[in-house]
């Protein structure tokens, strides 16, 4: 076992969260070491335009992701079942290299709704305690409000150069943006991308129906941009090889495109690649941590000591590391005591596939996050008094890609899947296909949690993380409700063939990719009994340990998570610099 020179801060995992924190911390002069289990990966060396447009390799074989062979989980629906391992790629499409999943993400760049952060209090206030405490749900507030997080959302959006149109600037509603969003301090750094054909049809139909469509804010940049760190990005070329792919144009925001050029040049920053952290080491007093233990590419164990440890290893690995390190009390679903592993949630997805005869969508023109959305049925934007669920879904149509292997499965019901009939049908329908995807919220439940599997292990012999989860009745009802609304929209869009889908009308499974967004496990909150970290993302148990991933969300909203992960990371890093370093100790009394 070798011990490295001690650092001020060690960062475990250099994805979006890790690199945003590293940027803040090194700028403040701290000595930072980041450790990532993946190899170095960058735009010009790994995904130039000559390599990137390859559906088979990146979208089907998923070669940019960390394979299940190296990193997987086990799963069951209920505690009375025996969990089994996810053997092939499922909902865990983890980053394979430094930069994490932020290199191959699609790039929808959202803020969560003000309702989300105070979901328990606001639900009780508007609908009464019996709706919040229905026996199944486990709603809890985040310990932070939207307004407190707003400046950090703004900072993330500037660093990433997000393209969009504001709907609410300081309370003033702007035509063309999302009128339901929380107030923003200013406009997006770059304008929205173009409206493509599927979006136009969706916008027309939803406007006629009295809804409020807007272009999804994205990390696919509409024009060249220089971010506040001085890093240049290019304009998105609508190449359509985006979700699951890198970007050869420096136009999809990623740690590589937005932060590494600056971070890697800082003298007080060091990066250890292909080094997997297997444990956060606790001090003898149990009040603090001393650093981490990692295994390098040769299988050698090392210790990296540091005054502060930041765990930014994506939702699943952040939670798993805490469990493996025996930090905090594991959650017990029978008593609801303990907090590590608590409130695992997902994304409750329904929608429709549709085919509009005579249309020419040119689906191959697109960008990972591009689409139109309505938030009329998202968050608490509509009255739930007479409905049998809470929250809702962002209902969106996509202009993402026309990848021909994947789309071969998108044909109207009743068309042959093979043979001459398939060829004819695919030729006829490739241009006419579009979709409405309801990106639904996910309410935490008492029986949804993460712990360590008793049987299956990884290549280091350490137990895999075990997911125990199924959709709540509230989420199932929400998915059905929004699916029915999507069918109405598809009819208004003029579709002749409509195939509704609802992932929540069956039990949850990790094998069927409804979404990549896995949430919870180390929830944040103001109450140390029900959260793992306080509102500054500081561990309640060890005050020099900070955790930042979607694992800290106590629930999931009807949006993708990364904007919120980014904002929380920046806020936590600034708190370390401004509050913790001058005065090390708990930033909030338990």
């Amino acid at each position: 076992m070798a011990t490295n020179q001690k650092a001020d801060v060690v960062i475990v995992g250099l994805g979006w969260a890790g690199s945003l924190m590293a940027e803040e911390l090194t700028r403040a002069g701290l000595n930072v070491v980041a450790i990532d289990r993946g190899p170095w990966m960058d735009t010009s060396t790994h995904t130039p335009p000559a390599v990137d447009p390859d559906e088979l390799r990146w979208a089907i074989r998923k070669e940019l992701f960390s394979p299940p062979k190296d990193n997987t989980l086990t799963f069951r629906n209920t505690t009375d079942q025996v969990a089994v391992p996810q053997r092939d790629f499922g909902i865990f499409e983890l980053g394979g290299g430094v930069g994490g999943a932020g290199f191959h993400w699609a790039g929808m760049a959202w803020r969560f709704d003000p309702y989300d952060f105070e979901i328990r209090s606001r639900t009780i206030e508007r609908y009464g305690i019996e709706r919040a405490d229905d026996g199944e749900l486990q709603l809890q507030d985040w310990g932070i409000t939207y307004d407190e997080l707003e400046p950090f959302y703004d900072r993330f959006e500037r660093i990433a150069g997000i393209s969009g149109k504001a709907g609410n600037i300081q309370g003033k509603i702007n035509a063309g943006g999302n009128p339901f969003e929380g107030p923003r301090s200013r406009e997006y750094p770059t304008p929205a991308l173009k409206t493509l054909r599927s979006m136009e049809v969706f916008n027309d139909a939803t406007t006629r129906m009295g809804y409020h469509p807007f272009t999804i804010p994205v990390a696919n940049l509409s024009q060249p941009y220089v971010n506040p760190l001085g890093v240049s990005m290019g304009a998105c070329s609508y190449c359509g090889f985006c979700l699951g792919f890198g970007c050869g144009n420096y136009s999809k925001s990623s740690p590589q495109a937005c932060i590494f050029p600056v971070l890697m040049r800082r003298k007080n920053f060091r990066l250890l690649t292909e080094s997997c952290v297997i444990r956060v080491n606790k001090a003898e007093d149990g009040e603090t941590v001393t650093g981490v233990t990692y295994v390098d590419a040769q299988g050698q164990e090392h210790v990296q000591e540091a005054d502060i440890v930041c765990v930014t290893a994506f939702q699943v690995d952040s939670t798993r590391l805490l469990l493996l390190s025996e930090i905090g009390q594991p959650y017990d679903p029978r008593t609801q005591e303990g907090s590590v592993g608590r409130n695992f949630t997902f994304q409750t997805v329904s929608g429709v596939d549709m085919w509009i005869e005579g249309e020419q969508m040119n689906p191959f023109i697109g960008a990972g996050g591009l689409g139109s959305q309505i938030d009329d049925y998202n968050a608490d934007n509509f009255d739930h008094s007479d409905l049998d669920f809470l929250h809702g879904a962002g209902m969106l149509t996509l202009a993402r890609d026309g990848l021909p292997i994947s789309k071969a499965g998108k044909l109207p019901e009743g068309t042959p899947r093979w043979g001459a009939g398939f060829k004819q049908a695919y030729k006829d329908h490739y241009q006419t296909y579009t979709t409405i995807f309801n990106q639904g919220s996910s309410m935490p439940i008492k029986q949804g949690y993460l712990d360590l599997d008793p049987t299956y292990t990884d290549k280091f012999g350490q137990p895999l993380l075990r997911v125990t989860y199924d959709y709540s009745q509230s989420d199932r009802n929400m998915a059905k409700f929004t699916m029915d609304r999507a069918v109405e929209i598809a009819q208004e869009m003029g579709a002749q063939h409509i195939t509704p889908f609802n992932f929540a009308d069956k039990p949850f499974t990790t094998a069927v990719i409804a979404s990549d967004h896995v949430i919870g496990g180390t929830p944040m909150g103001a109450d140390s009994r029900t959260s793992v970290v306080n509102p500054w993302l500081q561990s309640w148990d060890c005050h020099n340990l900070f955790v930042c991933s979607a694992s800290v969300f106590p629930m999931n909203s009807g949006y993708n998570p990364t904007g919120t992960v980014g904002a929380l990371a920046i806020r936590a890093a600034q708190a370390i610099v401004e509050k913790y370093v001058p005065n090390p100790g708990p930033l909030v009394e338990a």
Partner: protein
Amino acid sequence: MNRREALKSLSALAAVGAAATTRASATEMTGYPTDMTVAKDMLPRPAIAGGARQVLTDDTAERTISAVFDRLIPGDELGPSATEAGCVDFLDAQLADRFGAGASLYREGPKRANEDDLMQTPQFIATPRERYATGLRALEAYAQARDGASFADLQPNRQDEILRGMEDGSVQLDDAVNTKAFFELMLQNVREGYFSDPIYGGNRDMAGWKLIGFPGARYDFRLYTDRLGEALDLEPVSLIPRD
């Protein structure tokens, strides 16, 4: 350079890449890397067109899979059949590669009895290479037992009947083969062969892309983003450089 030479020279590059791994053992990095050349293991690993079979070396296996593929995607006035488009070349190359070896799969036991039900999808410890070997053998044995002839020699409508049975679960080839899942594997792979970049051996002359109007490995559509709803008739482009 013609297409065949292009494939060869790219594959030579890829072979070098595989040997001289870019995964540097020195893992500590300070400063921004100055070497901006493309990492060798990121280059495509092309199929060598017309090369000798690497996995589907058994004649019967090759005849069986060819027959299956040509029922799944037959030749007609819309375009070539799967085998004409190189889908068997594609499959052989894929089975010889990481995919065939199940390189990304978590294959630790035990495989539990409830596994497939809980996952709502079949899972395998066997590699795709092993699944093809047993699956094709079982399909041939099924045809011999039921029809007294090779699957490849059956009438197309009889072949379709067996395939439909495999698809809907009414045909079980033998106890060792999850027949429905094997059908889905073949259907997925033939689609991959027909619609992936020709660099992998299938989609010959970009026939699959021409069928539906997919313009291939183009990387910039900014000129077309205002031409909503128009047929653009873009000539497809492959990762293989043109002569």
